[in-house]
């Protein structure tokens, strides 16, 4: 069971601040989606609205074709995982797990136990006494074991150290393969998680900047390096994301796919064409100033 997500002309305002500005986005579902955006880009607000944690100021949020807000049939299939658990500091870890076990229709207790062991979660400790990493680990454990058809991880592994994060990626991928569902991962650690994404969505300043298959998006960035004049001639008229200059050499990052003919021309002009990593592409697309 996988859930498609659609957002139409979504606007979310907090007082005078516009966090999400007429965003339209469609996710077919049944894939692992990466949601990239800088701090304050509005991505958490979008995810909050999709998860029915908050209502949109205007516009539509549709999960499986219906509005999720206060829609019990949908909310029980949606799991919104953040880096901390929604529980009191005095609650014990096992009490928190017990609550999810009681309320989540697809909860897998065996799987939860395996994850608890893998992340070394102390069952009797109170939430307030947990380290930041343990809180994150508990959060993702709840999110994974809930097996919700739409599972959203909003920078859920912020506090976790590298080994724990990689353990999480492994568990996530394996469980997704065994139980396909719609997973949205919002992250800053693009290069770490990038290989898990089937599609990538980039949001900046409350608007959609890009949405494509990961490979297609990656292919859209090209770094053109060579003598300054040659580079300038080649990149004239193209969308430039950024550039660097060292003496007589210039390296310009452009956005847009190049045809084979254009590639040949570049090589003939003595230019080197290099790939742009997803992280760099993201940085360039969301940079403050663009030529």
């Amino acid at each position, binding site marked *: 069971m996988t859930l498609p997500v659609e957002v139409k002309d979504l606007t979310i305002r907090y007082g005078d601040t516009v966090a999400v500005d007429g965003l339209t986005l469609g996710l077919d579902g049944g894939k692992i989606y990466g949601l990239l955006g800088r701090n304050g880009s509005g991505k958490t607000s979008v995810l909050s609205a999709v998860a029915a944690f908050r209502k949109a100021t205007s516009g539509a949020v549709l999960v499986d074709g219906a509005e999720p807000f206060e829609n019990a049939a949908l909310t029980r299939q949606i*799991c919104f995982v*953040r880096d*901390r658990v929604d529980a009191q500091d005095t609650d014990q870890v096992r009490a928190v797990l017990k609550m999810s076990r009681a*309320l989540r229709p697809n909860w897998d207790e065996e799987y939860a136990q395996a994850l608890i062991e893998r992340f070394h979660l102390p069952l009797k400790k109170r939430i307030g006494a947990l380290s930041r990493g343990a809180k994150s680990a508990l959060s993702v454990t709840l999110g994974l074991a809930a097996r919700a058809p739409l599972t959203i991880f909003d920078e859920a592994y912020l506090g976790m150290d590298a080994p724990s994060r990689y353990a999480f990626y492994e568990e996530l991928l394996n469980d997704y393969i065994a139980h396909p569902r719609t997973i949205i991962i919002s992250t800053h650690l693009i290069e770490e998680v990038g290989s898990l994404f089937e599609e990538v969505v980039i949001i900046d300043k409350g608007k959609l900047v890009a949405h494509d298959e990961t490979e297609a998006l990656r292919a859209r960035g090209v770094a053109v390096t060579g003598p300054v004049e040659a580079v300038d001639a080649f990149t004239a008229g193209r969308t430039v994301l950024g550039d660097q200059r060292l003496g007589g050499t210039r390296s310009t990052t452009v956005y847009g796919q190049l045809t084979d003919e254009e590639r040949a021309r570049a090589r003939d002009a003595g230019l080197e064409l290099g790939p742009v990593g997803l992280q760099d592409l993201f940085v360039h697309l969301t940079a403050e100033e663009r030529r």
Partner: protein
Amino acid sequence: MTTSTPWLVARTQARAGLTTVAGYWAIMITIYAVIITIVVSVGDTDVSIWATSGGSAPKYFLLAIGVMLTTAYLPGYVGNGVTRRDYALGASLYVLAVAAVYAVIMTLGFLVEHAIYSSADLMGGLEDPYPVRSLADGLGTLVAELFVGIIYLCCGWLMGTCFYRFGAWWGIGLIPVTLLPVVVTEVGFDSLWLGYGINNGLGIERPALAVGVLMAAVSVAAAWFVNFALIRAVAIKKVSG
């Protein structure tokens, strides 16, 4: 799902609150037992100890339980896929249960104390006649305490919701408003001590039970519906700390 979600919420909440509620009453009853033993041995008192201790402390406890319902538990339920509506309905069942426990314990306490006072011959020293003198009184007390329990829980709940939704400043500012239903209910039942105090001060006679029930019912309805309306659209914020 074979069990409806509100029932699931009520059960989960009951399990979560069990130790707190049971613990509170255990302590309260123990303290009372100690005091009453002393009083019996001293041989003289001019008030009902149960009325004195039950007149305010348990109510603040109920208020506190109410406040925590939204602030401490709502995010957890929404985070587990429960709608605010189902949470509110389930928590209401829990409120009824906690209020029922309060009402039963309070009423039984009076009956027990009545027996103690009678056998220890303490009735004579009382300033005012003993509050619960007959079975009819007992039933009336049960009904009144049930409503009082519900209203303190509901108003505490409403208070917590205001804090959660509007923030600390407005939360504090709205406290007098959120306590209004409590005052009305207490006045309606001439409850010790708030209602009794107000009625006494204003020279109002103790209202008939039916009037009290009516005032309480209106108060509960008002508090509950406003709370429900505020909860239904509230945004779940990011967890801090």
